[in-house]
């Protein structure tokens, strides 16, 4: 026991290069010494990688410089976005209290992220404005036109329109506001719609439409996503002249109905991608045809 701890002490000194010659001669007589010495010598030649401080510092400094350079393009991008927003802003008339952030879509629909990652999918010819700075305290968006909202969980989320307000109690809903219609469709969660001192709670797949007199129609089990999102227009008993306005806007051509057919009601739809097919989708069920007059398409009764 005593001898063993003595050996341990000698081995420790030997490993630390602190052993005297006399002690070493004692240790050499130990039965394991040859094996231990072999391990001691071999282990000091093991390869655990070499590290060159100068090379590594140079590499580090290059990486630090690169990361500084990389940040610049993102700044440029941010600036470009700011300029774009600025251009859009000048193209719009704005009410004073909403002067903060305005997004509009004169030509094509657009998905926009609000500061809390709620998203707004804006239809053509629509705009939203909101106060970016105060967004954390008050999630209020003013809407013109039509948009699909997907709202992150949090405090109340309000969409203000000229015809009434929509308060979100849930997650996804569509709002459409024009001179004739104020229509809200709920796709997920719950939505409260207030207009003309009336409050209507919408559950998923409910849709409420207000006519200009302020009366409303509630439809249930409507659809799971808005038609315009899927690049399709769908109508339920809509006047042809109204349908053709959508066609004109979507394809950027003038399409009108002759007087005799403009009040025909249309139930059906057309796809946004192809004008020829869109016209067929409307004409065939109604038994109509069209002619071209000075870059204008006029729909008439089939002869």
């Amino acid at each position, binding site marked *: 026991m005593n001898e063993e701890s003595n050996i*341990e002490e000698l*081995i420790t000194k030997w*490993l*630390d290069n602190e052993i005297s010659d006399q002690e070493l001669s004692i240790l050499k007589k130990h039965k394991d010494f040859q094996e231990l010495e072999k391990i001691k010598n071999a*282990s*000091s030649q*093991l390869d655990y990688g070499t590290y060159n*401080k100068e090379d590594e510092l140079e590499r580090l400094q290059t990486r630090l410089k690169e990361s500084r350079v990389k940040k610049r393009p993102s700044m440029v991008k941010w600036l470009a976005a700011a300029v774009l927003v600025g251009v859009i802003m000048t193209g719009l008339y704005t009410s004073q209290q909403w002067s903060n952030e305005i997004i509009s879509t004169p030509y094509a629909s657009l998905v926009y992220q609000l500061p809390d990652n709620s998203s707004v999918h804006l239809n053509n010819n629509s705009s939203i404005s909101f106060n970016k700075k105060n967004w954390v305290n008050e999630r209020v968006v003013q809407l013109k036109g039509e948009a699909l909202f997907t709202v992150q969980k949090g405090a109340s989320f309000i969409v203000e329109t000229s015809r009434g307000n929509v308060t979100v109690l849930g997650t996804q809903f569509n709002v459409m506001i024009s001179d004739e219609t104020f229509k809200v469709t709920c796709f997920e969660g719950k939505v409260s719609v207030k207009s003309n001192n009336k409050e209507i709670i919408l559950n998923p797949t409910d849709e409420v439409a207000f006519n200009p007199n302020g009366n409303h129609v509630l439809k249930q089990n409507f659809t799971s996503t808005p038609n315009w999102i899927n690049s399709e227009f769908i109508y339920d008993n809509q006047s042809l002249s109204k349908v053709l306005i959508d066609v004109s806007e979507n394809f950027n051509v003038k399409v009108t109905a002759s007087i005799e057919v403009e009040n025909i009601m249309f139930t059906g739809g057309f796809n946004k991608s192809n004008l020829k097919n869109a016209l067929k989708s409307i004409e065939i069920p109604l038994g109509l045809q069209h002619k071209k007059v000075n870059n204008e398409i006029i729909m008439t009764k089939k002869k």
Partner: protein
Amino acid sequence: MKNPQDEEVCNEDVYRDIFFKHSQELFKFYSYKYPLVRGMEDIIQDSFIKLWNNCAKIEINKARAFLYKVVNNAVLNDIKHLKVVHKYEQEPTTSTNNITPTHVLEEKEFHNRLQHAIDLLSESQRVAFLMNRIDGKKHQEIADELGISKKAVEKRIYSALTHLRKTIKEL
């Protein structure tokens, strides 16, 4: 908010000094501790980049601890993925030859066994042992660097050696 001064990590000279003082030490410590982790140089680099990005928040005397912590986290993250690999690598490579204790092992065979036996040491034993063997550090220096007593270092190194002797025979 502090302004970068002479004694601040944000000062480029101070930062460079810290790199020269600690990068190699970090590299060695973690290479010895976790020999299976690849790309240790890059992990060390990342930790210094993180130090630079946070230089205003870190006091100069806390920089070393910060670096150790960052490297440790990165390495442990890596090891999660390596666990399975490690398990298989620990399976002894059985040689079909009859090896008697008196058999003289060839140099290369011995080396393989030694390497394998070192992999099987505990992390703390391996670190102390290799710092002594490869870097030729005195026990006291190792104790200072690891922040433990000299006695503890001696215990780790001695038990590492005896473990190695035993394991090499058994393999």
